[in-house]
């Protein structure tokens, strides 16, 4: 089962996209996007994992102990912040949309006239 985490990451992408495509509520859609983004956290951390190794923190262990990859963790940390802030901004946009149009359903938000 050495590829299982990767398959789970791919599954989260599929599920998130499915949620976005079929969503009938913009708040729901934004959360589905967040689920899809969380797939990249899983992917990154799975890549950097090393069997039988310590976390990359040498407070209590000598600095020569085998440890998992610290880079992916730093990247994931950045990614978590980015994902969260984007989600917050999107939520604000959804609230704003609702304020103007009184609905969160993308189908009802479809303009009556062509938009081109």
């Amino acid at each position: 089962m050495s590829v299982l985490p990767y398959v789970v990451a791919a599954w989260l992408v599929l599920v998130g996209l499915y949620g976005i495509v079929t969503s009938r509520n913009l708040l729901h859609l934004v959360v589905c996007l967040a689920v899809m983004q969380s797939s990249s956290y899983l992917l990154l951390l799975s890549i950097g994992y090393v069997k039988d190794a310590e976390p990359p923190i040498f407070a209590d262990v000598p600095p020569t102990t085998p440890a998992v990859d610290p880079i992916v963790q730093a990247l994931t940390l950045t990614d978590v912040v980015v994902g969260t802030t984007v989600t917050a901004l999107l939520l604000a946009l959804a609230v704003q949309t609702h304020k103007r149009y009184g609905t969160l359903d993308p189908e009802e938000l479809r303009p009556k006239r062509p938009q081109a």
Partner: protein
Amino acid sequence: MNARLRLRVFAVAGTALFAALVWGFVGLPDFGSFDGAYGQLLNRLSVPDRASTDVVTTVNFDFREFDTLGEEFILFAAVVGVASLLRTLRGEHVATPDDDVPGRRVPETSLVVGVTGTLLVAPTVLIGIYVVLHGHQTPGGGFQGGVILATGLLLTYLTADYMTMRRVGPTALIEAAEGAGAAGFVLIAIGGLLFAGSFFENFLPIETAGQLISAGTIPLGNLAVGLAVTGGFAFMLSEFLQQTLIKRRREVR
């Protein structure tokens, strides 16, 4: 596209995409057998060169601190964006003339909630500060501590009523914290340029690993980010919260 057609197209495209992703992902090294030269190099450098025992923090606040600068301003841009988006919403309600009539009934916070909240706030804030300050030694750092602190502030809001909240956390102050944290982080970078010769170079003494004041500018960076994140998250949360609180007050009236 109607919902049916969209679902059909997606069923085909999504399945193909899933297959493609799995095909790409299985090319990765088997789970648990990664041998990244870059990561191991930094694992070896962090303690001797930077006296920081949390390598992840060293990566974020020294080796690849420039990424964190970008990340910090992503937060900044999102906060400013949320503020300008919800700006009119807020204006609309605050402008209601009878909103600030003295002597009007405000929902009283129940005693139990108040006491529990107050008891929770102090430890939360303490934990937050601890996590920010010890970022270079143990798991945590400016970001995690900042979010904890912001949640602590939010607890104050939730347990006190809206008027107290306006007194405790005026928006301008939070904005100032956010701005100061973000600006401070850039100043650390420029400090590196001035005192050590290159942007973001660690220009303070490294000292020995394990002490609170060690690792040069890493704790400073954590502090700046902690300030910015506290300000940013508190701002976003309170911005969303303000809407709801106004609502609650109206219903009571």
